[in-house]
């Protein structure tokens, strides 16, 4: 299956089925908890406030991000988080496509607000290529180095 057969969908929490929610948390568990060996609480209570962007190839969920309207994660700014692509689907431009669509959605719905993200440091270049600028020093989040970045 090629990445060209992928379907990108954005749904608010309210529109997700229980099964879709489970699939999302399964993928996030694979990528963040197991993949990054992070003993963190992935279902952090914030998901009911978010829009959920899913990438499916056929019936399989292969990529994801969550999108926050302004005020739900950062005051005055929208946000994108939990950007994840299954290991076997990486290096095919899916992560970039997820970000482009997430940014387009937030810009269309909240044009007055910047987008702020808490980005893992090793991805700083990836986000810079999408127009984000670094607006903080490095800090630790779940024991991993992050920087705050902003897209105006």
């Amino acid at each position, binding site marked *: 299956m090629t990445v060209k057969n992928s379907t990108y969908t954005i749904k608010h929490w309210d529109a997700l089925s229980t099964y879709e*929610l489970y699939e999302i948390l399964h993928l996030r568990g694979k990528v963040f908890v197991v993949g990054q060996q992070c003993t*963190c*609480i992935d279902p952090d209570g914030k998901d009911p406030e978010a829009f959920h962007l899913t990438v499916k190839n056929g019936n399989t969920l292969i990529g994801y991000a969550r999108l926050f309207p302004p005020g739900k994660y950062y005051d005055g700014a929208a946000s994108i988080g939990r950007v994840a692509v299954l290991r076997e689907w990486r290096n095919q431009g899916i992560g970039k496509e997820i970000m482009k669509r997430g940014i387009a959605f937030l810009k269309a719905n909240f044009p007055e607000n910047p987008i702020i993200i808490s980005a893992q440091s090793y991805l700083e270049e990836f986000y810079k290529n999408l127009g984000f600028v670094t607006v903080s020093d490095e800090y630790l989040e779940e024991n991993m180095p992050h920087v705050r970045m902003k897209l105006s």
Partner: protein
Amino acid sequence: MAVKIQLKRFDELSKKELYRLLQMRAEIFIKEQQCPYLDPDNKDVSAWHVLMKNPDEKIIGYARIFPPGAYLPGATAVGRVSVDRTYRKRGLAYRIMDKSIGFLKEKFPGYPVEISAQSYLIGFYQNLGFVQVSNEYLEDGLPHVRMKLYFHS
């Protein structure tokens, strides 16, 4: 303290209930036990979910139950037995297990209940009638033993 216990199949769970039970499992099994394993393992769709709720309707205790063959061949199973940290030492885990065992005895009396129990809980499960049926092994890096409960008519 008044608690209520509900048993629900996966598709009877609300999104809020599913999210809360996965959150509680992450708090206990991933964070508290410092074990970065895949908690939503895709097996939940085949299970019954035992939800213990406090008077505010918050899930504070949990277990998942599998029919014969869904987790282990020839046996039913109970797993992810957990109680929210602030509700421990009140006998709630025993109540969750009693409910689970009662349900399995009624529905599948011909099958033993088999569990993969963390070793430090051998006494807890023995008090419920389970016997150890294996040597110790590691599961997700933590010591476990297999235990079984037989129903005698």
